[in-house]
């Protein structure tokens, strides 16, 4: 990456300065640099470093969220440039929720921030979300992946219900890929349910990349 060309944008991402990041992104695009170059040469590598630092806890959730906010701002600002360019604005669309009966959300929020800094568009439905709301939202936004979180053993049946609902005839055609994770969930259980598993936020990104064929 050319250090001088993107320095202001890099600083904005690392300091979580949305206004500065958005302004600089527009300036770069208006100077003739294609959005795909801005993302490919600057934003994606920096987000990779940020995600890596978070997975080693060299930085923490607030910094991750701030970086994600900058990226979302930049994506929105450059949307018109992308559309005319034909370039996709995100790697894929993900519906994320903690399933019904479960109120834990910090782990889910960590996954959300990691997915966003890694280029995914995430619709976070929050906690205690029922299967029909999850599937309906996924259909409406044409999601690629449904990511489900649970931290309590009695929440596992809610995950099963969501999986089952995704497989009934009228929903199956949408081809949602389902990824699950959280305290009581193990890889063995996910394999039995025939869905994908992420042990932690970093693994969730790897799985999402694989499912959308967008891994580096």
């Amino acid at each position: 990456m050319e250090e001088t060309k993107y320095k202001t944008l890099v600083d904005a991402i690392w300091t979580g300065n949305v206004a500065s990041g958005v302004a600089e992104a527009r300036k770069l695009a208006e100077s003739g640099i294609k959005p795909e170059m801005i993302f490919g040469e600057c934003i994606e590598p920096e987000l990779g470093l940020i995600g890596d630092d978070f997975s080693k806890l060299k930085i923490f959730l607030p910094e991750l969220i701030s970086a994600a906010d900058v990226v979302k701002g930049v994506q929105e600002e450059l949307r018109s440039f992308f559309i005319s360019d034909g370039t996709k604005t995100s790697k894929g669309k993900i519906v994320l929720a903690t399933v019904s009966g479960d109120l834990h959300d910090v782990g889910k929020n960590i996954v959300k921030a990691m997915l966003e800094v890694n280029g995914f568009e995430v619709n976070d439905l929050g906690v205690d979300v029922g299967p029909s709301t999850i599937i309906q939202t996924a259909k409406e936004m044409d999601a690629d992946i449904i990511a489900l979180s649970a931290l309590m053993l009695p929440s596992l049946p809610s995950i099963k219900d969501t999986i089952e609902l995704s497989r009934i005839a009228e929903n199956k055609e949408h081809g949602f890929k389902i990824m699950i994770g959280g305290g009581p969930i193990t890889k063995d259980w996910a394999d039995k349910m025939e869905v994908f598993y992420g042990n932690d936020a970093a693994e969730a990104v790897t799985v999402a990349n694989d499912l959308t064929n967008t891994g580096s």
Partner: protein
Amino acid sequence: MRNTGRILDIMERALTGPMMEEATFDKVHVTEGIKRVVADYDIKVDTGKLINQDDDMADRVWQAAIDFIVTCGVFSKDSGRVILHSRPEIETLLKAAPSEVLLGEGHDAVWERARKIEDPSPLVVDGCSIGTPIPEEYFVPAMISYIQEPIVDVTCGGSLETVQGFESRTGSPLEILSTWEEMDLAHLALKRAGRPGMAYTGCMMAMSDIGQISAAQPGGLRPTDLNTFGIISELKANYEIFNKVTHTIRTGGIVDAYANAIYGGLGGGPDGHAVLICAEMIALSVVFQATCVGASPTHPFLFCSTERNMMASASVAFQAIARNSHLMTNLSITAVGGPVTKTLLYETLAYSLMASLSGNSRLLGPRPATGVISGHYTGLEARFMGEVCHASTKLNRESAEVIAQKAFAKCEPDFEKKPYGKPFWEAYDVRTIKPTDEWQKMVDGVRDEAKGWGLSFD
């Protein structure tokens, strides 16, 4: 002093406090609030030490936590408002908090008391798996493996994977049935082991207020048991949680609330984490009228509580509380290692020393294999935990630190390997409820090792 007047007061604050979006509370009140006080009070946790040796730092963490909780408050999710207390109110309420409570009944009753740093009295040994999943047919023998250990003072069971073949569902009749099944089996285990009056720590199958309230009546949780429930991370409540508090107080039960600050989450790294843990304990006492306040800080990737930086921040936080209040505090050991692994034992050794020397009143666990692998827990590691806690009362922080570091050096390299060990039915003879020779020899060996490092079990 807990009473219904305070419940009304909290509800008034929940219904009239400043209104805001939850995301704003997270970012502005919690994250920025923590950053501010960490800077203002120059909080710097020495992560090279597992057991804090700096009293001045502990006192600064206390002041930072008070300052923080005054401005941050607790978010009431149902009303979308923040419950705030002034500094004088918080200080008055903390002075009125109880400093001792009787757990259990008859010959099996034990006193839990507020402890000081390097306290010569041992903490209460709450030997349990803290809700690790278990097939229903093993629930009773696994519980007996804890209760039969004389050094275990109070206990609780695992989480029943099924009840008569049905999985529980939160908020449904299945939750109530599962809760009562747990209560029935727990009482059976207590009686069979000959300690019917031993206190029981909460109800693992009671996920919502429905289960908790249903279980807290004759035949279920007794007034001398602990009504254990968590608040929502970080510093959030809802009416369900307040329902549990209200019912417990009205029925004369013991409010045993806990808060699990996520390391690396909204509070950031070790410095913010220490302040957040301390503040959450204060909030549990002030807002939730908890008699006992507890934490089980969680690592976002290892899912344990035994990570180095987390132990350092927990130690400072609880020393801050021990030096500046008479709250009864508790910690939980969530270990990476499982039964029949030395990793579990070294983690238990290090963490028990930290918790005991830092002034905790009670220690729960150990919860092996991060508490998620079916049946991976036994009473033998709880016996070891209790032995270490009792032995630790002869140490000061400096000498305990040396032993803790030696133990930690032997388990830390194994964390990434996730040595989850064996389930109860492979670590014990299920009929006789005795550990296998392999497991017993392993524990004896690590005990001998600890003796060689300077820990006297006599």
